[in-house]
């Protein structure tokens, strides 16, 4: 079981938390619930206010991509903190997913700026979108 564990490193203690998994209907208003849950996970693992702002944007962009471009099925988002990195990973069923759709390009532009890394994978009729925000050491 992945309980919270404090791992001592040379510089800081890095807290491991998760996975916290959220499953919700593709309701635009629930994006806020996903952001709230993500903020909670991030704040208890010591991310600072600016980093939490980035995490909220990252989670929201994942929700935008999945809700606006998915096939109107349940959305699953998972939050994981380990090694000083917050990762959100979202997935849903898709019909056809145009990675070059202008809205999705805007979405990825934002993810590129607020995340250290992100990606979109398509397989077996599902889209998986993930994004990571790094914690500052100090």
């Amino acid at each position: 079981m992945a309980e919270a564990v404090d791992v001592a490193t040379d510089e800081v203690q890095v807290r491991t938390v998760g996975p916290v998994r959220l499953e919700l209907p593709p309701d635009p208003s629930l994006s806020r619930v996903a952001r709230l849950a993500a903020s909670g996970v991030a704040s208890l693992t010591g991310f600072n206010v600016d980093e939490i702002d980035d995490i909220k944007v990252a989670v929201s962009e994942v929700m935008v991509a999945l809700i606006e471009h998915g096939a109107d099925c349940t959305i699953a988002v998972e939050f994981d903190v380990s090694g000083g990195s917050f990762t959100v990973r979202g997935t849903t069923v898709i019909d056809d997913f145009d990675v070059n759709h202008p809205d999705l390009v805007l979405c990825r532009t934002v993810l590129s700026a607020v995340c250290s890394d992100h990606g979109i994978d398509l397989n077996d009729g599902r889209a998986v979108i993930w994004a990571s925000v790094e914690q500052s050491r100090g």
Partner: protein
Amino acid sequence: MTEPNSIDSLSATVSRDGVIVIAGDIDMAGGPILELAIAEREAQLAADGADHEPSPGDVVLDMAGVFFIDSSGLRSLLSATRRAGERGGKVVLRSVGPEVTRLLEITGTLDHFDIESQRG
């Protein structure tokens, strides 16, 4: 039927002086609510013949109550800038917070807007 009990994630109202006062998150849920208020203001401007002082055709948004925006919300703002441009006007952002400024910067869309003031 009384007022619905449900609380929208965003409120956007056109005040008496024509300024759209926004409070809440401009996201997938808030964007469409904001678009309704912008459409209401655009209809006023069209009815006025857009010949008012000081800035004919401008849509002014008071963003003091906005602490979150994502790309879906930005698209609502950008479509207002496109229409404003077509009629020779601008979208003016008043009391903009750092969260909004950041998203405009990283998407390279800051120059689509007229930033009147930052949130104090």
